[in-house]
């Protein structure tokens, strides 16, 4: 899958590039609105990660230009440090698939991209396998050898997020933000997520051995696969 990163902050673009390349995406860059529009005109992308504040114009214009072209199915995720409430609505109304406020975690970006892929391609195989567990993303259930594991909504979200980011440490902060959203100061106290992880692990362990579900020295979690 190919991704176009439209971002004038080279430092950030390069980090996203490195992260996504490792995930197997083919990444291209555009630093400016003009070059972004040129690239979009020439190529089709699976994903366009679009910054709004570009040095030579507004990212919304790029979005508009893309939507004016026929038969385009590029998924657009708006990335912005502009925190205006209206921008989110404007972006989604303008045809963007998602909206991520800076600073965001790369894990979160990846999770959003996975979600869009599933939605866009209406994956017939909506199931994700991890060890002997099967996650039914559509119905948000987990089963083990055809038998349903009784997880709560939050526990499923945590499991899903960790599976998406498998083989990577997911910090509590990132996990909290993904599952509970961005409630500012309220989430500064993120230790309560442990309770959910503890319960999740207990339920999974009742089915089989889960030594692949790692606690990373009191800072985060990792699922190895």
């Amino acid at each position, binding site marked *: 899958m190919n991704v176009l990163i439209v971002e004038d*902050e080279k*430092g*950030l673009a390069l*980090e*996203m590039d*490195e*992260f996504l390349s*490792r995930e197997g995406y083919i990444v291209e860059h555009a630093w400016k609105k003009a070059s972004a529009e040129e690239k979009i005109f020439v190529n089709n992308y699976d994903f366009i990660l679009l910054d709004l*504040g570009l040095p030579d114009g507004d990212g919304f214009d790029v979005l508009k230009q893309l939507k004016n072209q026929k038969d385009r199915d590029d998924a657009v995720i708006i990335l912005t*440090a*502009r*925190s*205006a*409430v209206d921008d989110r609505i404007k972006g989604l109304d303008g045809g963007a698939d998602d909206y991520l*406020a*800076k*600073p*965001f*975690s*790369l*894990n979160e970006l990846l999770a959003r991209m996975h979600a869009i892929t599933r939605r866009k391609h209406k994956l017939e195989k909506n199931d994700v396998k991890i060890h002997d567990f099967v996650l039914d993303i559509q119905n948000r259930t987990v089963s083990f050898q055809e038998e349903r594991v009784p997880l709560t909504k*939050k526990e499923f979200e945590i499991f899903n997020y960790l599976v998406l980011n498998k083989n*990577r*440490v997911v*910090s509590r*902060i*990132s996990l909290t933000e993904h599952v*509970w*959203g*961005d*409630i*500012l*100061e*309220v*989430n*500064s*106290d*993120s230790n*309560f*997520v442990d*309770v*959910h992880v503890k319960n999740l692990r207990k339920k999974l362990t009742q089915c089989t051995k889960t030594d692949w579900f790692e606690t*990373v*020295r009191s*800072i*985060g979690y990792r699922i190895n696969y």
Partner: protein
Amino acid sequence: MNLQAKFSLYNAITKIAVILVLGLIILLSIEKISYHHLDNRLTKKRLKVIANLNDNEIDNLLRAQHTFTDYNILKDEFIVLTAIPKTKQLDPSISFTTERREIEGDIEIYRILNDQFEYNNKRYKLELGETMTAMDAVKNTIRFYMLVVLVIALLVTLITDYAFTQFILRPFYKIIDQKLNKVNDPIAYDYENIPTTTTDFKFLDNSINALMRKISSLFSLEKQFIANVSHELLTPISILSGRLENILTAENLPIEHENKILASLKTLNRLKVIINSLLLISKVENEQYLKKDQVAIQHELSDLYEDLEDRIIDKKLTYTNNVKEDFVFTGNQALIHTLLINIINNAIKYNVVNGTINISDELSDNAYILKVEDTGIGMEKENIANAFNRFEREENNEKEDSFGLGLAIVNSIAKFHQLTIDIKSEKHKGTMVTIHFPL
């Protein structure tokens, strides 16, 4: 009293005064004019009588009796000649009087000329009378019609005055309404002049426009500044956290470095939360949010319970929601949600294990009151007043993950919505937060 009513009242009062004065003058002058007229006629008649005087005539006049009286048929004139003795001094002057006289059973008011003269060594007193009844009737008629006309004129001018001032003042009220009352956001201000031919209103309109231009340029500068700050601070954080996340994926990362990197990510998150909180506060204080949502408090409470449930269970708290009223408030839904979640989160965070949280409400005459009570660690009295200040944390507060911005956010959101918040607290016993929503 508004301007229009004042103008109309003033006009009415001055008109009544002018009319009264005019009416008085007219009535008085009618009387004067009619007397003058009558007196002239009587004087002329007297001259005629005197000129035609001769012995015969007088004898005729005085035959048999000592007075002579003559009327015309209509009794509107009479002449009386009386002989008077020579004892008194002769008064040659002519005087006029207005008197009631009974003539053949009819009493009427007459204007009477009195004269004394000597003729052939004899003295006579002459009275010439002319009725004033006709005059009075005319006077009364004039008075009546004048009154009617004046009252009608007064009413008509009052109504036209009222209508006219309304017409004249309409642009003024339009300016007040559209340019001052209905302006929430100076950015969305309509600079179009309200059509008027009154230069004063044009001046007012233009002055308000100029003022608004100034305000909105300052306002957008402020907005721009906030947007810039958020961009300039949040983008570097974004780069740093991306970089750290990438480092974390390295296979052969020593454990102690991994720890440090995760700790750095936590610090970055803290920075992000602080910046976002400050941005939120400053945006609320700059009124950059709309207040147009219908916010159902019940619904918000059950919504945020879902978000906070885990923490409540984690601390084994007894959470009771006794809210009975279906109160709906017009405001910003996201902000009200943030306000409530911060207050209730504090009740959880500063509670003791196995403590309770009780939410109740009450509807008074002028406010809806929501109470959040907890059995937490409470606050010292002197700290309550400072609780709403930014970065204010109670001393010896062990919670390192609190930035002291939660209540500052609550405070600015409350001010934005004109809510009042009271905190009652007792150390080691608990805290009660009361939110007053004005009706």
